[in-house]
């Protein structure tokens, strides 16, 4: 490698680091100001304090919102992944007419603006006479999560030899036995990755939750409502910092499980942390 190429490679590295800093610096301001001993979010930093974290822990409404978010995220991630397993299996295992168009429709929520879905779901839920509740948020979040779940699981289903399922049938084991004794153990890392990914997406999602929550806000909705009161803002920053940390940890775990074993292709690994 010549000197010229070496310096060119180094320049590209600097460039990449600058890009990363520009992307993540604003996000790092959140935890920074959550330790700031001042009510206003502006430089200079006045001093370090943990009082916003203490205030946050002493706000029952925030606890309630956090608990709502966890409930919604757990139910959404489990249901979306369950549906994703069947979707991914169908796509990778069976010849069926209209597979292309069906997949297109299933994957559509990835590109349709959430606000469009949120509005239409709101109209629909009211029209069929359902009350807005955590349940309606779960429905909305499942629409968003299912395509991600299917995308993660498809790579897992394609990653193993189809003859393994044939072999199980051949050894006298029926469809259900084959599914639980061969298919599930082999796609299990993908299932865990999908659950974690869907959990993070649901937990961080704001727009759907904003439209579909009644009197029970999820954490992002609650945090948004606090924005109008400047004196409450630092508490929100504290909560936001914790959410970022938890999300990053969960996403790293999801990526770890997704990569375990042999893996290829089509996977949406990063998701916008909707904060």
């Amino acid at each position, binding site marked *: 490698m010549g000197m010229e190429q070496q310096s060119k490679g180094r320049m590209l590295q600097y460039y990449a680091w600058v890009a990363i800093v520009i992307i993540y610096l604003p996000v790092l301001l959140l935890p920074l100001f959550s330790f700031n001993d001042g009510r206003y979010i502006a430089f200079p930093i006045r001093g370090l304090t943990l009082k916003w974290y203490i205030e946050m822990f002493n706000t029952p409404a925030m606890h309630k919102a956090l608990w709502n978010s966890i409930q919604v995220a757990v139910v959404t991630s489990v249901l979306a992944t369950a549906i994703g397993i069947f979707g991914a299996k169908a796509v990778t295992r069976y010849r069926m007419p209209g597979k292309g168009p069906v997949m297109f429709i299933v994957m559509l929520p990835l590109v349709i603006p959430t606000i469009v879905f949120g509005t239409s779901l709101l109209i629909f839920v009211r029209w069929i006479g359902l009350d807005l509740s955590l349940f309606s948020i779960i429905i909305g979040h499942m629409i968003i999560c299912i395509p991600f779940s299917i995308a993660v699981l498809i790579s897992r289903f394609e990653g*193993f*030899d189809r*003859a*393994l399922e*044939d*072999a*199980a*049938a*051949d*050894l*006298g*084991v*029926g*469809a259900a*036995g*084959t599914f639980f*004794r*061969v298919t599930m*153990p*082999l796609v299990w890392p993908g299932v865990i990755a999908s659950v974690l990914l869907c959990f993070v997406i649901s937990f961080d999602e704001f727009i759907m939750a904003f439209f579909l929550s009644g009197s029970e806000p999820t954490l992002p909705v609650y945090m948004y409502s606090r924005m109008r009161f400047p004196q409450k803002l630092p508490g929100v920053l504290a909560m936001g910092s914790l959410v970022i940390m938890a999300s990053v940890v969960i996403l790293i775990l999801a990526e770890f499980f997704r990569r375990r074993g042999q893996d290829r292709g089509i996977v949406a690994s990063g998701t916008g942390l909707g904060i």
Partner: protein
Amino acid sequence: MKTTDDSFVEIQDVTKRFGSVLAVDQADLAIRRGEFFSLLGPSGCGKTTLLRLLAGFEAPTTGAIYIDGDEMSTVPAFRRPTSMVFQSYAIFPHLDVFNNVAFGLRGKGLSSPELKQKVHDALSGMKLDGFENRRANQLSGGQRQRVALARSLVTEPKLLLLDEPLGALDKKLREEMQIELRQLQQRVGITFVFVTHDQEEALTLSDRIAVMNEGQILQVATPHELYERPASRAVAEFIGQMNLLEVEVVDIEADSVTVSCPTLGENKVSVGSSSFRCGQRATLAVRPENLVLDTEVSEGTARVELKASAYYGNTTIYRVAVEGITGETIDISQQDYRGSTTPGTILWLRWDSANFLLLSE
């Protein structure tokens, strides 16, 4: 329809289409009980599809399959008395060797000691003692294959289906496994259906062979018959080495025809049933080992020029051109030729037309 007594597996007029692709085209086949039966053909000829139809992984588009007298169309794969050894071996990667072999035994009402005993017997039958706790990725190709065989045989199938099981092994191991497979089949006595594209392998192992091409069964015969009397040019091209010469039929008698070609002149060839007409074009098939090279002229020899030779250890293949004829060469396989091997050497080609075979297109 009842199957005849000696046919254990009967494939009746089976056609399988995948969309517009005709994978198996009106196949008719009867396999006998206890037979080592091979499906031989180039890749894409439909042999694996036929095997998967027997296993129940695919359903025939039309036609019927009987195994041991039972019609199979409504019997799903997991209820069929068949077991398959896959090309990839399909060892369950999340289970160790013991649990791979035990897979088909669980849920069959066996007590734990019974199950253990069966698995251990199956493993020692395959010389796999001590491998119980290994995973697939800790086994060699040959060991994986033996695990796959043990796993299939422990369920006591009536019919063992083998999908190119030796394809992934190197030559030496493949030859060892061929002998082991043959011995195994004789020991357990169950019917084997073996898919391969390797004609040598099929000839070595099989009691009978079905040669397939483009979804059709071209010929069903013993290895000996197939080698000595291929039914068509397509089969002859596929089985062993063969000189195929374009000839014209010039005279017809009761059980023989006389054919003429530029290279070997006129020859009388015996034919079983004479469906040939005078003036018809046909193919004369001559095995390289049925031709002899001489350094001296004698009666009925042709003057040839040596073009090339290739040494194979147990034999040498000589390629010659008949003098005055360009573009067509003849291969001769001979062990005891002691003359010059310099290309351009003039030699004499001797043959006995009793060994010739006349094929219609």
